[in-house]
Each structure stands twice: as C-alpha cells, then as structure tokens.
C-alpha cells in the first residue's frame, strides 16, 4: 500500500504539473494568432486551475501544506519547458492534447490502479474527475482541428517523438522516495 508520504508526493508533483500547464496555456493565449485556439486555451486554463486547486487541497489532507507543489524530476521539468517554448500553433495543439494530456491521464490511471481505493478515495475521486475533464479537453481540440484542418500537424513523427520522450521520463523527483517504477515512468 502506498504510504501517506508517497501519496502526498505524487499529488503535490501532479499539482506542480497542472499549474505549469495552466501557465503554458496562459502564455500561449496572446501569442497564438488563431482566435478559436485562444478561446480553447482560455477554457482549459480554468480546467487546469481547478485540478491544481483540488490537488492542492488534497496535499493538506496528506500532512503537507495547503496548495503544496513538488518539483518533478529534472527531465520532466525540461519537457514542460520545451513544450512551453513551442511556437507553431499546430505543434502547440499536438503537444498539449495529443501528448501531454493523454500521458498525464495514463500516469494517473497507473496510480489509481496501485493505490488503495478506499484508503485513498479522496485522491481517486480527484483523479477520476480529471479523466473526464481531460477527455473533454482532448475532444475539444480534436473537434477544432476537424473544423480548421490547417491546425493539424503535418509531420506526425514530431508528436511521436515527443510522446516517446515523455514516456521515457520519471515524473517524481529522485530525491523523493519513489512511489513506484510504474508511476515514475
């Protein structure tokens, strides 16, 4: 069974990632030319903020400060920075909605599989809500690219390479006791 400390570290690390993605979407709003994409990002800033807030309330319940964030592993922080620096709109959409969000869902599903669903039910509820919201966000981006095909990525291997990079990274920082190998990958 995951300890309180391990669960707290996972939740606080996830909070860091959600705040970071909220800030990335916010930074992209004025620098993305397409109005429809700005509006999509604007909506999802609020989604990310709400999940960060829920995770931050949960850290307090897990004997950490309220709204505690923990820095992920260096490689993951570098990935977040690399994504934030992307400029072409099609790559921004692909990185956020085809790579990072599905990967975050997958890491959280692995956590849900490993944690005790009764002991850790409040965390599980928060993550399950994220699954539903992430699916809506991904669908929204997909629908927009259906309406505006110029927003589709022409070079599919670019997203594949980013996906491979993400999958090879630890999420939890090494100095923190590992939650598990599966969660860190």
């Amino acid at each position, binding site marked *: 069974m995951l300890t309180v400390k391990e669960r707290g570290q996972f939740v606080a690390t996830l909070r860091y990632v959600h705040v970071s993605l*909220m800030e990335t979407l*916010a930074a992209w709003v*004025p620098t993305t030319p397409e109005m429809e994409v700005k509006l999509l990002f*604007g*909506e999802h*800033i*609020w989604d990310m903020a709400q999940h960060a*807030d829920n995770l931050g309330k949960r850290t307090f319940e897990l004997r950490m400060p309220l709204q505690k964030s923990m820095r992920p592993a260096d490689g993951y922080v570098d990935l977040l920075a690399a994504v934030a620096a992307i400029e072409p709109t099609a790559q921004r959409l692909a990185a956020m909605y085809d790579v990072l969000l599905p990967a975050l869902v997958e890491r959280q599903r692995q956590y849900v599989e490993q944690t005790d669903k009764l002991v850790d039910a409040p965390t599980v509820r928060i993550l399950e809500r994220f699954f539903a919201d992430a699916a809506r966000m991904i669908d929204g981006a997909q629908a927009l690219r259906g309406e505006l095909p110029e927003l589709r990525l022409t070079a599919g291997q670019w997203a594949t390479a980013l996906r491979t990079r993400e999958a090879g990274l630890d999420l939890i920082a090494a100095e923190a006791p590992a939650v598990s190998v599966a969660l860190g990958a």
Partner: protein
Amino acid sequence: MGAARKFATKIVRGVEVRDDPAREPCFTVVQLHHDVPDSGAIGEEARRQRIHRDYNQEVQTLEIAAICLTDFPDAPWELRMEFARQCWDEARHAGIMYRRLLALGGWKGMYPIANLDWSVVGMLDSLAARLAVQNRTFEAGSLDMGAMSLPGFREQGLEHEAELSDAVDADEIHHVRFANKWLKRLTDEQPRAVLEIASAMAWLRKVIAATELDYLKDIPTSDHARQLAGFSEAEVAEVVRMHQTAIARATAAGRSGDE
C-alpha cells in the same frame, strides 16, 4: 512604467505601449479606437460592427487575464484562481460574440480592430495596478455601458441581444468585484501598492489624453451594477461626480470652441 521589458513595445501618439497580441492575417489592426468603424446604435451594419468590436474586446480581456497569470506567478493562489476563471469567462463571451457575428452574416476580420486596452494594461508591471486599470476601471466602465445599452436593445426589439448582454454583464460584475476585494487586501498588506495604483492611474490619464481612449466618457455610471461589483456608495458617488465634471468640462470646451 518600468525599466527592463520582456516584451516588444510600440509608440502610439508619443506614448510607449505594449505591442499588439498575435492576430490572424485576416484582421486589420489599427492603433486608436476611433479608427474602428462605428455607425451608431441602429441598423444591421451597426450591429455587426458592435459585435465584431466586442468580439475582439473579449479576446483582449482574455489575453490580459492570461498574462496576469504568467507575469505574476507568486501572486496569492486564490487570486490566480480568479484570473483563471476570468480566462474561461472571457473565452465564452468571445465565443458568444463570434456566434452572433456569424448569425448576422459577419466574419472575422470584417472590420478593423484596435487592441489598445491590451497595449495599456500590458505595460503595467504591478498586479495591483492591472486590477485597478483593467478590472476596476475598464471593466467597471463596460458595466456602465452594458446597463446603458440594454434598454436600447429592447426598444429595437433585439431581445436576444439584450439577454446575451445581460448574461455577459452578470459575469463581468464578478470580475470587478474580485478586483475590488483584492485591491483592498493588497493595499492593506502592501502600502506600496497604493503608490503603484496612483502611478498607473496617472499614466492612464496621460494615455487617454494622447490616444482619446476615453470612449466611456459619454456613458452614465450604473450605480446598481457598480454596487453589485463591490464599489461602496461613496465610491459610486465619486465616480458620478467625476463623470459630471467631465461632462461639464466637455460642454465648456465645446462652448469655447463654438465662440
């Protein structure tokens, strides 16, 4: 308004302001509000112009809220949540305007746009100053404008537009209210914030004088909306007094110009 800048600026009528946010090539971006077409209140063309203008205005407000998240990462989390929520609200408002524009036979880029609110607020390097100028001045002004335009919509039989305008205003009241709440908190906790606000308002007056940004000058103050948004009765009375003074000055200036 600060020494080192991490963003590009431009000069409008001799005043340095932040360069425009990204826009698609279909848009013609002009520098001053009075270069954005405005045929008045009545007629299909006037409606399309107003909605096209409001569409870009809502996007600008989204962009301003978004940079309040990125430029001030150490702001209190509760305040960042307010800006994040505002981003969604403004995105929805822009979506509403765009849907209405299409329904009226309009399209993106149909008329020139100006991004002066962004250019002004984006120069302010204090969060308290941005709350004071954007939320407490520009958005409070748009509440007054909304209250004024509702009867006009209804007189023209534009019930749908009246309902949409009312719905948008209900959201905007909260954006002004949270600014009022946080300005009180920030100035209580950091007396320096008072100076930052005063400096920003002084700079805003300079920009208004140079660019004729005072497109709100003919809008009567909406006491009800402002009180819902957290302005005290004394503050509303002060805004009314300033408005009446402005009208008196404008009238006097007009008279002297006639002579």
